[in-house]
């Protein structure tokens, strides 16, 4: 297992040699890096070679392999992010980082499936965040290394072109599946929901969760033609009878509360790709998996990467590991 977490000086040195890097770390350490060919996002949690770790000093480093022909870094705003697929390379991939709770995050979450060329090119990435004790006190940021600029809103993207004969394969590992309970639909798209239809019957969703004493650590799960797509529950606003979510539900999509899982690490390793993990080039996993499954100090089958406030595999995901593999035809 190669190391993936480095100190400031080592990362700075690699930047100055021209390496093309995707970085994750605390804002204080990312802000000290020199300008160069890198993008980054704030987060102090990682899956390192020795397991889950929280550090405000270390930086998680993903270096584009030599097989990547060209790489360009760019930024988007909430009103331009819709171009992210149209701008993607014909053969390659894009890595995107968006700050949590920013207008661009909210816009991407709701609208990505309507973007021109949606899902026609691998788009992987994550939502940057902060230490959980600093939620509401500090803002998540993304960094555009070419200028050193830190953004509280917008997206940074690295677009990578691969040579003919190779391709990027984007996939997810989600240990959650739909339980055998009620079918839940919602009358409109959104991160905050009141009304829901439970088996077709109009019900307040906050009341429903309370009445059924649902375990809110388990997500809602939709079946997208075989891909299990989670929506995680953030909190219940009892006074206003609303449920706050970490990703938007979509009108008419059928959700079910997830089936319980046993030990996360055991379940996770059982879901690892059959052809091994050595060819995985980039991956990220969810802060909720890290916290609820107590991953600090535990390894997830040798998988490394930043721990995130949301994962992106074509669209926004929750409680899921997204990973990208570069393969030969």
């Amino acid at each position, binding site marked *: 297992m190669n190391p993936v977490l480095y100190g400031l000086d080592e990362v700075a040195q690699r930047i100055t040699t021209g390496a093309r890097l995707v970085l994750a770390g605390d804002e204080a350490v990312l802000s000290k890096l020199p300008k160069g060919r890198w993008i980054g996002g704030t987060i102090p949690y990682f899956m390192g070679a020795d397991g889950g770790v929280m550090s405000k000093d270390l930086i998680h480093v993903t270096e584009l392999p030599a097989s990547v022909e060209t790489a360009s870094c760019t930024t988007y705003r909430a009103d331009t992010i819709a171009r992210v697929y149209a701008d993607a390379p*014909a053969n390659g991939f894009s890595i995107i980082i968006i700050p949590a709770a920013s207008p661009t995050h909210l816009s991407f979450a709701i609208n990505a*499936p309507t973007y021109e*060329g*949606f*899902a*026609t*090119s*691998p788009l992987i990435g994550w939502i940057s965040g902060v230490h959980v004790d600093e939620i509401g006190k500090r803002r998540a940021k993304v960094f555009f290394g070419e200028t050193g600029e830190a953004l509280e809103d917008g997206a940074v993207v690295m677009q990578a072109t691969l040579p003919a004969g190779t*391709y990027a*394969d*984007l*996939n*997810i590992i989600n240990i959650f599946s739909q339980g055998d309970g009620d079918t839940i639909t919602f009358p409109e798209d959104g991160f905050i929901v009141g009304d829901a239809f439970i088996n077709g019957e109009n019900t307040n969703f906050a009341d429903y969760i309370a009445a059924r004493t649902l375990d809110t650590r388990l997500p809602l799960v*939709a*079946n*997208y*033609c*075989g*891909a299990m*797509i989670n929506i995680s529950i953030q909190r219940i606003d009892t006074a206003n009878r609303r449920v706050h979510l970490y990703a938007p539900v*979509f*009108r*008419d*999509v059928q959700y079910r509360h997830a089936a319980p899982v046993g030990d996360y690490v055991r379940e996770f390793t059982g879901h690892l790709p059959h052809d091994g993990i050595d060819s995985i080039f980039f991956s990220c996993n969810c802060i909720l998996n890290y916290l609820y499954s107590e991953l600090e100090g535990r390894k997830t089958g040798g998988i490394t990467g930043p721990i995130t406030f949301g994962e992106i*595999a*074509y*669209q926004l995901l929750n409680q899921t590991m997204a990973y990208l593999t570069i393969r030969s*035809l």
Partner: protein
Amino acid sequence: MHIPDASSPFWISAVTSERTYELEFLAMKILLARLRLAVKQDASPESIQKCAHELRELFLKSQHLPKAQNDLKRMIQEGGMS
């Protein structure tokens, strides 16, 4: 990989049916689910045609990928078009 013509009824059938396929390609799973939802919400001929076109575009752009090839083959066979 032979990709059915844009005029083939295969594309409209794929986005309007509720047939389930054992798909491998994540992009195909997500996009097909999205297109079927869009058709459910707007079943006008224009909407169906737009979704059918979008599905075909994904295959055109992904036709060199083994998972996309396998998915199209499976969809054609199970859709009764082999």
